[in-house]
């Protein structure tokens, strides 16, 4: 007979995720009563302290939101500012930004695949333990990450919080010779990424699937990184400027991060698995060939297999970086002039862990009046909680330690960046008048 006693699982500090968060699960017998992904990283007030700053400062300020994915914030803020005043970057400017973003995807995915996520599939507690068992692939994985960092350094001036991006372009554009210096490493990295895709495809995946609504950008001629329309597998197809008509953020008491939902529908998933499922056709021929050889094709509804999608994206980024470098001709000027005027602009780009949305209102002097930033982890947060609820329900026969580990595994599928998503929490005090 099932126990009727209420029990809780508390993971006070989630490991192998970016930032500080915990997990709370309350259950009775075989029934899950409550699941909370508790993001207690302090609120960071970015949207507030952007107010009153010059529009041109947004990329350097928002870059500080994350040390792992600063370029996602820089790109989104620059694109939003450019959207506000009707400037569109094309040619080498656009290609250079895409190259820098490829660097960030390689760096961020590389860290997550080899140091944070893969240990879960062997019941190990750290990347170090994994390295002891698989020194060759982990060493190569760290080298991949390093190449990603080098791309970011070359285009962005430095790998963490790059300084070379500005609204309208770059402070300095690299020469062709400088980019070509990366070529040998990129060719090596591409080969290793193929090897890594085969390695991750052979991991032992839990048998779990969910009928997700996947959301990502979609571009007619390229895998979505910089821009595109927002689409989903349930018929969403809107411009980036329509984002707030279809998505809203809700505050929950247990988290300093707001939770995003699709209006009228609820939770959704962004990130590598969403992009893979929605935009597979835009992968390069090499990536498709490797995906077919490991028998990993859309649609995949198993979040644990996000590690395969992530690895294919690493491969794509090496391939795409080589394409950009081969075709690169430096721009005549490193940046375009951007007019100062009162305007509002929005943009979405694809951060490594999913779509990110920025909106800014700027006054006639170019000062920011209002800022709104929706990072990917806010968007995945509710889906993570729903997944946890469903995933652990049949597993209550496990020991508490094993249950905790299973819960953490599910969270890590999403590569949450908790530091990015911790926003200002609005407090509403309500007096309970019932007796």
């Amino acid at each position, binding site marked *: 007979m099932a126990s009727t006693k209420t029990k809780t699982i508390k993971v006070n500090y989630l490991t192998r995720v*970016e930032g500080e968060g915990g997990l709370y699960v309350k259950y009775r017998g075989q029934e899950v009563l409550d699941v909370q992904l508790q993001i207690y990283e302090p609120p960071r007030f970015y949207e507030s302290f952007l107010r009153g700053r010059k529009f041109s400062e947004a990329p350097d300020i928002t870059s500080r939101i994350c*040390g*792992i994915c600063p370029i996602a914030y820089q790109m989104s803020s620059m694109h939003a500012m450019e959207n506000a005043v009707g400037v569109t970057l094309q040619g080498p400017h656009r290609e250079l930004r895409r190259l820098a973003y490829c660097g960030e995807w390689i760096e961020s995915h590389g*860290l997550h695949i080899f*140091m944070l996520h893969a240990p879960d599939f062997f019941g190990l507690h*750290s990347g*170090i333990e994994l*390295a002891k068992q698989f020194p060759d692939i982990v060493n190569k994985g760290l080298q991949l990450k390093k190449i990603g960092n080098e791309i970011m350094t070359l285009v962005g001036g430095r790998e963490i919080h790059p300084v070379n991006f500005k609204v309208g372009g770059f402070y300095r554009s690299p020469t062709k010779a400088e980019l070509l210096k990366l070529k040998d490493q990129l060719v090596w990295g591409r080969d290793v990424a193929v090897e890594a895709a085969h390695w991750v495809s052979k991991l032992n995946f839990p048998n779990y699937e969910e009928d997700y609504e996947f959301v990502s950008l979609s571009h007619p001629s390229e895998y979505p990184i910089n821009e595109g329309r927002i689409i989903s597998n349930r018929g969403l197809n809107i411009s980036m400027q329509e984002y707030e008509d279809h998505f809203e953020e809700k505050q929950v008491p247990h988290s300093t991060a707001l939770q995003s939902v699709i209006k009228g529908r609820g939770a959704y998933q962004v990130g590598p698995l969403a992009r893979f499922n929605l935009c597979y056709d835009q992968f390069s021929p090499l990536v498709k060939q490797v995906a077919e050889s490991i028998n990993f094709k859309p649609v995949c509804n198993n979040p644990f297999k996000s590690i395969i999608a992530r690895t294919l994206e690493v491969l794509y980024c090496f391939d795409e970086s080589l394409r950009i470098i081969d075709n690169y001709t430096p721009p005549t000027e490193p940046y375009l002039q951007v007019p100062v005027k009162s305007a509002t602009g929005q943009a979405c780009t694809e951060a490594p862990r999913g779509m990110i949305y920025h909106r800014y209102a700027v006054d006639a002097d170019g000062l920011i009046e209002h800022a709104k930033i929706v990072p990917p982890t806010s968007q995945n947060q509710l889906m993570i909680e729903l997944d946890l609820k469903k995933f652990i329900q049949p597993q209550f026969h496990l020991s508490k330690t094993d249950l905790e580990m299973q819960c953490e595994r599910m969270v890590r599928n999403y590569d949450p960046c908790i530091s990015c998503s911790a926003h200002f929490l609005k407090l509403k005090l309500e007096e309970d008048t019932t007796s």
Partner: protein
Amino acid sequence: MRDTNIAIIGIGNLFRSDDAVGIKLAQLIRDQVPNYVSVHTNVQSESDLMDVWKNIDKTILIDAVSSGKKSGTIFRLTQTDLENLDPKELVFRCSTHDFNLLNGIELAKIFNTLPKEITVYGIEVKTTEHGTECSYEVQQAIPVVLQQILSELNLSMNRSFETNLSMIREENNARS
């Protein structure tokens, strides 16, 4: 011409008061060492450590420590000490994202990139709150560690270096 390459690595966060001590020490020593000694203050991950340690024979790491001992206490650990260390006993304060010094050393061992000789200087912190100034206790430890590292490298202080040290001492005296 020496045939030994040495890397000095200062680890920490410049904006978390005493956590910055490793970087501050490395910055002080940077201009005082010959060209076979490289000084690094931007090591933020295990792979950064591996990179720095390529072709390095001897390395000195300087980091803040939180072990419950008296603030400003100086630790000097050799490789043997590190191998026998209980990780729970001595926590090296390093960046977030799960990187810490002991993990870096462990990985380097696995990948065979660990220098032949490794020494870690740790300075017990008083506070790691937001701020750019080290506490008085940690400030006092700075010149002592500097002298120890120079002696370890058989280097003598140059004049500007001595001036630096006297300035630190004067500042400490003024604060005490």
